[in-house]
């Protein structure tokens, strides 16, 4: 019994350390954006200030890179949601043998390192005279983000009752109408969720983007360059804003999902 209690106490200690490992970095990074020190840190605390937020807000290069990231994310969503949905529908209509082969091909971008996707896209398009830039960033990111959409739509399709389509056909609807009025509405939650995931994946991508960016500086590249060339707490302020925005977005998404499920 005593051994068990010691074991239990040790386990709770492990849980605490694990939680600290998860959150201490984020908390320290956020806290450092309020410290007056020129290098972002929390020790020593040189006084509380919001000047770094003002500095971040006034940074034109930051706005430029944010704009690039948003533009890329919007284009990515426009590509990946239709293509990913089409891929899921095509895959579920294939017969067993062809299906498992096609499946392996279609998830292969997920098993390819991000840098390789960026490099191969860059090489192909340079051959055709297109250099790095927004177009290639969108294309390279979409290559693997389509897989996520496809998997999410497929998961939803598994719960789809196909007799609904047949019933609509039997009642005289055209096939296009069946797709628009039966299949698509059923897939809607998965499409919205995958669009959200695609935006997140696109904005946070670094490995693939780095190779195809050309002279563009998306947000992740902007931050990584700052870390190497002149890190000030203004970058932390930006990080904190992004983190708060992502967490609020994630919670809002989760709440919406639960409300729908209930």
């Amino acid at each position: 019994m005593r051994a068990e209690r010691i074991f239990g106490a040790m386990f709770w200690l492990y849980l605490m350390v694990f939680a600290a490992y998860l959150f201490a970095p984020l908390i320290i990074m956020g806290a450092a954006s309020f410290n007056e020190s020129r290098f972002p840190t929390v020790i020593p605390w040189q006084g509380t200030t919001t000047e770094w937020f003002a500095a971040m807000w006034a940074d034109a290069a930051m706005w430029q890179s944010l704009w690039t990231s948003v533009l890329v994310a919007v284009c990515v969503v426009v590509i990946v949601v239709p293509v990913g949905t089409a891929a899921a529908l095509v895959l579920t209509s294939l017969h067993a043998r062809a299906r498992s082969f096609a499946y392996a091909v279609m998830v292969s971008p997920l098993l390819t390192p991000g840098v390789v996707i960026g490099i191969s896209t860059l090489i192909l398009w340079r051959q055709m005279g297109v250099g790095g830039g927004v177009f290639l960033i969108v294309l390279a990111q979409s290559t693997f983000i389509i897989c996520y959409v496809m998997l999410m739509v497929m998961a939803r399709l598994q719960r789809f009752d196909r007799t609904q389509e047949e019933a609509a056909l039997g009642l005289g609807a055209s096939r296009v109408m069946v797709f628009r009025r039966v299949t698509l509405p059923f897939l809607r939650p998965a499409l919205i969720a995958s669009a959200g995931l695609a935006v997140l994946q696109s904005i946070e991508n670094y490995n693939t983007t780095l190779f195809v960016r050309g002279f563009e500086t998306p947000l992740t590249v902007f931050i990584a360059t700052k870390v190497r060339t002149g890190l000030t707490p203004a970058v932390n302020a930006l990080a904190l804003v992004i983190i708060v925005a992502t967490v609020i977005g994630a919670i809002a998404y989760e709440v919406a999902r639960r409300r729908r499920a209930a």
Partner: protein
Amino acid sequence: MGDLKNRFGPGLSTIFLILVLFWLAVMVLAPNLMMIDYALRPNLPPAALGGPDDTYTLSNILYLAGEPTHRAIFFKTIWASGLVAAVTFAVCYPIAFWMAQRATTGQLAIAMMLIIIPFFINEVLRTLAWFIILAYRGPLNAVLTNIGLIDAPIRWQGDGGVLAAMVYAYILFMLLPIYNAIESLDKAQIEAARDLGASPWRIHTRVVIPHAKAGIATGFVFTFMLAAGSYVAPALLGSPGSRWFTEIIYNWFFEGGDWNRGAAYALVLLVLCLAVVLITLRLFRVNLTDVAK
């Protein structure tokens, strides 16, 4: 195919097929073929392209085998990525077991949320967070010197820093598959083993881990692959002595100006990752369908 046409009519199914073929042909297949083509050709000045020297050769790949620094970095990237996967497993297994078998519904919901929140945050930002903690005059050194564990600050940047940040970045990819696998284990099996006198160690090695091996393999594959292909953690937290293979590839493209050699190195990385994925899956008899979830 017939089924697709039957279901959505000729117009829509053609659109679907065109979209999918565009993706697979133009975005997946063609870039990879062109990369292989590049990797197998020498780096020539534009005037010599199409000339007698423009033939297929293995010289770019052989260069990697012959250059001692690059070769060392390549092998180091492999074992270090394996180490990242192993450490991530050690960190995640107890908590995955607890969540799957011991936690109450409420505890589980909270734990899930706490674990997922950090992973909504950008990898670059998570690496930046470690950059700040591990800085020479940063909080970690300050705390350790203050409580007297170390006399002078330690330079964490380098292998140690890269390891800490990578394990941090890939926890979720290890934790979720293991959790899913252990969750499907019937509690009665653990109790039966205990009633028959098995020690906790034996319960885990003989009952839980064999049951969860597919999940563990999935976690390993993803963590290894992400670590081997990572650029941001070694670039921001590494030191000149801890270079990563992806950094060498980057240099071929944007500093060395030899895209052919860069393509060859990238091809080697791709083959390595695919080999690790396929061998691990075969060893653990896991189906690809179960991996990508």
